[in-house]
């Protein structure tokens, strides 16, 4: 276990992804260490979802490598160790939350106690017997999150899990993420809401398929001499753009 902890939970080397004819990820390399809560921030279209798909092994990649827990992303051995919550809730709308979780629990090889516990975690136990199609958007995305928590995977990839939730619930969910990390899990959580950054141990900032920064929030603010994440992003983006146009000259 100790030896395993030393290598990163997720190691990405020179990753390139082409979707359609566009280069969506351009030579990204990052390490994400065990037991950390990492925020993936970037505007819509910056490649957050694509990067996450590459980590769970759902994305065809054009080059480079993605290694999760020491194995190539998407390996059969990894499928019960990596939980993935897609950006739009991926659950069966015609089934109830409980029926959905029953099915996904069977796939994860866990029982009813675990279903109860994840329903509690995402605060859905009151409405677990309603068909998902009759739930609100935020409730649906919590069903989707609950399904990924079944079997307590070591690595959790959560694509904008808090979008459209009320602030109280958002805080609760970030508390849940924190407690999962305390329990030893590694979480990568994407968001285009920059103020969720305070909640993370480290931040990865993406723009147009490239990494602008990968560091802690205080270090980032210090380096960019800014007061908030939004400002830091702008400062970094401007620096990149200026150096690009100088290169061209």
């Amino acid at each position, binding site marked *: 276990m100790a030896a395993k902890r030393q290598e990163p939970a997720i190691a990405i080397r020179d990753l390139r992804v082409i979707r359609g004819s566009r280069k969506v990820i351009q030579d990204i390399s990052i390490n994400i260490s065990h037991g950390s809560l990492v925020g993936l921030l970037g505007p819509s279209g910056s490649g957050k979802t694509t990067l996450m798909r590459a980590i769970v092994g759902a994305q065809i990649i054009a080059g480079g490598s993605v290694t999760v827990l020491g194995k190539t992303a998407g390996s059969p051995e990894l499928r019960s160790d990596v939980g993935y919550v897609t950006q739009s809730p991926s659950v069966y709308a*015609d089934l109830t939350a409980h029926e959905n979780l029953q*099915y996904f629990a*069977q796939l994860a090889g866990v029982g009813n106690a675990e279903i109860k516990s994840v329903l509690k975690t995402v605060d859905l136990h009151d409405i677990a017997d309603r068909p998902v199609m009759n739930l609100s958007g935020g409730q649906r995305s919590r069903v989707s999150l609950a399904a990924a928590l079944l079997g307590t995977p070591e690595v959790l990839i959560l694509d904008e899990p808090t979008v459209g939730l009320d602030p109280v619930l958002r805080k609760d969910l970030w508390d849940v993420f924190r407690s999962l990390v305390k329990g030893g899990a590694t979480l990568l959580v994407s968001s285009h809401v920059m103020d969720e950054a305070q909640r993370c141990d480290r931040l990865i900032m993406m723009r147009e398929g490239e990494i602008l920064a990968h560091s802690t929030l205080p270090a980032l603010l210090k380096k960019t001499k800014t007061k908030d994440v939004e400002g830091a992003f702008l400062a970094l983006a401007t620096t990149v753009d200026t150096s690009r146009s100088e290169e061209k000259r």
Partner: protein
Amino acid sequence: MTPSLMAATARRVLQQIRRDRRTVALLMVMPLVILSLLKFMFTDIPVPPGADPTFDSFGPRLMALLPMLLMFVVTSVTTLRERISGTLERLMASPLRKADLVLGYALAFGLIAIVQAGLILAFSLSVLNLNFAGNMWLLGVIIVLDAILGTVLGLAASSLARTEFQAVQMMPAVILPQVLIAGLFLPRDAMPAVLEWVSALLPLSYAIDGINSLAAGDNNVWSEVGVLIAFIVGALVLAVVTLRRRTA
């Protein structure tokens, strides 16, 4: 393959179908309505002396087409929804094996097919007074195989499809040629040789051949049943092999 995960998948698919009244009606009531219509359609056609009443010869052949058509459409739509809702992506990132998913679907729809065939036969015999010379059980076997064939062709088509739009396009592309040249309208040997060869590649041809042979009182339809099973196995393998965990 993991039998428990396959069974879990079949159970989940059945739960979804049961919840969906319209699909249940489409699968269970629609064939009966169409067969009744067929019977009604032919009521004023005089039957030449010595020939079979038209419904008695046409009805059983239609019993091969309807289950296959309906099961194909329902399977395609169900798997298309799985793709659009993102649950397919989730399943492909889960420990579920591709074969568990495909066989789970086949099992669920196979059970539905048995109920459907039972209803069709019972209704045709008791309400529509179908006169069928051949063995009813064998007719039932062919109808069930035919419905399962519709399901597995639907699974193969949706595995092959790379996009949602392609999945929709597969529906008419797979079904329409079979409706026309598998022997429903014209005996296969009465068609030009080229079409006869093409029809030999279409699974529905063998279902209709088998039913024609039963209707003529010849119960030796094992070769047709064998070919249908071979098509089913082939389509299952195709569906499993072409399903992709990684997509662009």
